[in-house]
């Protein structure tokens, strides 16, 4: 394949937080890229800055140094749209008005907004719930609305921050299949943060492994498990081997993250 400009280019991005008068390095010179239409998964132990990286991509947090470039192919649509972990829907808006929220803010006309909402709600299987309020929906349904809201904006890149983490195991499995179907239909570039390696291998084209704090790119693994991919992939030897291989590395980082936390606790009790 001829080399082309990546859809998402993250180069040497660092993020430093000020916390209790000390500076904490959350992300340390992260470099990665995602090709157009790629499903890129980011895994790492808690505290590795996965969500921070996503927030930088979403423009919700400014990096301390480094550069983020997102290739804009469709002028007039936003660069990114984020699906939040706790869905973050507006409780006072109906499902439909949540989905059209971004379009409304950009001044898209009513007719187009509603057509778009219908289309997206049909895609996530919530056509009958357009007039419901979020509190009337289950956790899985709320997250479907979150996905419809993001997709309605037709973003260049879809960002997902552990979108299924708060769901029960069965709902999560169903939603993973749904995500694969939607991604196959729309061909969006997706950057997907998860703490589940199994989920990353089911969904992703590549898996970026971040280290414990400060978050650095430890390794990037291609997921050569073919497409279209379904839950049955979990039974294949290639899947098992790759899972084993990445888990061995991830495990070291998780152990290190736990040790760091203990160390921090000791410091606290010394102080």
């Amino acid at each position, binding site marked *: 394949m001829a080399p082309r400009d990546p859809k998402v280019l993250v180069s040497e991005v660092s993020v430093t937080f000020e916390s209790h008068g000390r500076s904490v390095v959350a992300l340390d010179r992260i470099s990665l890229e995602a090709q157009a239409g790629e499903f890129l998964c980011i895994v790492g132990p808690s505290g590795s800055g996965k969500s921070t990286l996503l927030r930088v991509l*979403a*423009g*919700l947090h400014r990096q301390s140094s480094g550069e983020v470039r997102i290739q804009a192919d469709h002028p007039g649509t*936003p660069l990114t*749209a*984020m699906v*939040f972990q*706790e869905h*973050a*829907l*507006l*409780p*006072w*808006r109906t499902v439909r008005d949540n989905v059209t*929220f*971004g379009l*409304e*803010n*950009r001044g898209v006309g009513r007719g187009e907004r509603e057509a778009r909402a219908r289309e997206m709600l049909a895609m996530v299987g919530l056509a009958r719930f357009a007039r419901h*309020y*979020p*509190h009337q929906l289950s956790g899985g349904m709320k997250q479907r609305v979150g996905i419809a*809201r993001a997709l309605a*904006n037709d973003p260049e890149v879809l960002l997902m921050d552990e979108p299924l983490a708060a769901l029960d195991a069965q709902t999560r499995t169903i939603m993973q299949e749904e995500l694969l179907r939607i991604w196959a239909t729309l061909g969006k570039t997706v950057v997907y943060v998860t703490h589940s390696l199994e989920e990353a291998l089911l969904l992703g084209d590549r898996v970026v492994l971040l280290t414990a704090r400060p978050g650095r790119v430890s390794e990037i693994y291609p997921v050569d498990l073919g497409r279209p991919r379904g839950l049955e992939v979990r039974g294949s030897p290639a899947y098992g081997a790759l899972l084993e291989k990445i888990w061995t590395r991830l495990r070291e980082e998780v152990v290190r993250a736990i040790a760091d936390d203990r160390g921090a606790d000791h410091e606290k009790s010394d102080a």
Partner: protein
Amino acid sequence: MKAPGRWLAEHWITIASPVVLLLVWEWASTTGRLRAVFFPRPSTIAAHLFDLALDGTLWTHTATTLARIGWSFSLAAVLGVAVGLAMGLWRPLRDGLDPVFAVIYPIPSVLFLPMVSFIVPAGDIALVVTTAVTSFFLIAFTTTHGVRQIDRLVVEAALHYGARGRRLFTTVLLPGALPFIFTGLRLGLGFSLIVVVAVEIVSASRGLGALLWLSWQVLKVEDMYATFFVIALLGALLSYGLAALRARLLPWVPDVGDR
């Protein structure tokens, strides 16, 4: 929801207790266990209430009191919500006003009457301004809190999806604070009633508070209790009216009445 039988099983005591109380009162006054001069029979009070309603006295006084509550509450609501929103959104204002409010708020409103009378004409205007003070603080407090408690993640999501300035206010901050604003309005309305009646007792010749006090001074005890009952009923009606309005206007709030 629940079956009516089950509802009755859970709530019979709520319905039965006032009825039993009235029956015991009736019995005690009739048999002389309570002195009928101070505690007339409820049936006598009801007859007096009926008379007061028939000759129009009750309506004039009720209308006067209602008008005062209306003005007082509206003044408190408009200023309270405006100041509360500003304090919720703008930290320096919050930091500056918090100590002032903390000092003024616990002072019983009636005590402001003399001061207010120096500034505005004594009479109805002074009464309305005085009675608005406590409600104003209540409404401002709850409104500020309403803005402060909005889920940060929801605000962040709204920003991410392009809501800015005025739109952020009308689509996120205001609706997010509304359940608390309503709670403040409900409390404020209750206090408007309490304080209007209290101020009427000390300084007015018309209104339910004045009627109650006058009845007491000339020992028309039945009329005093009748007025008492009307005030209580008015309070309950206003409170439930506002709760019903809230349920209509805020359909997104689950289990209305919990908060």
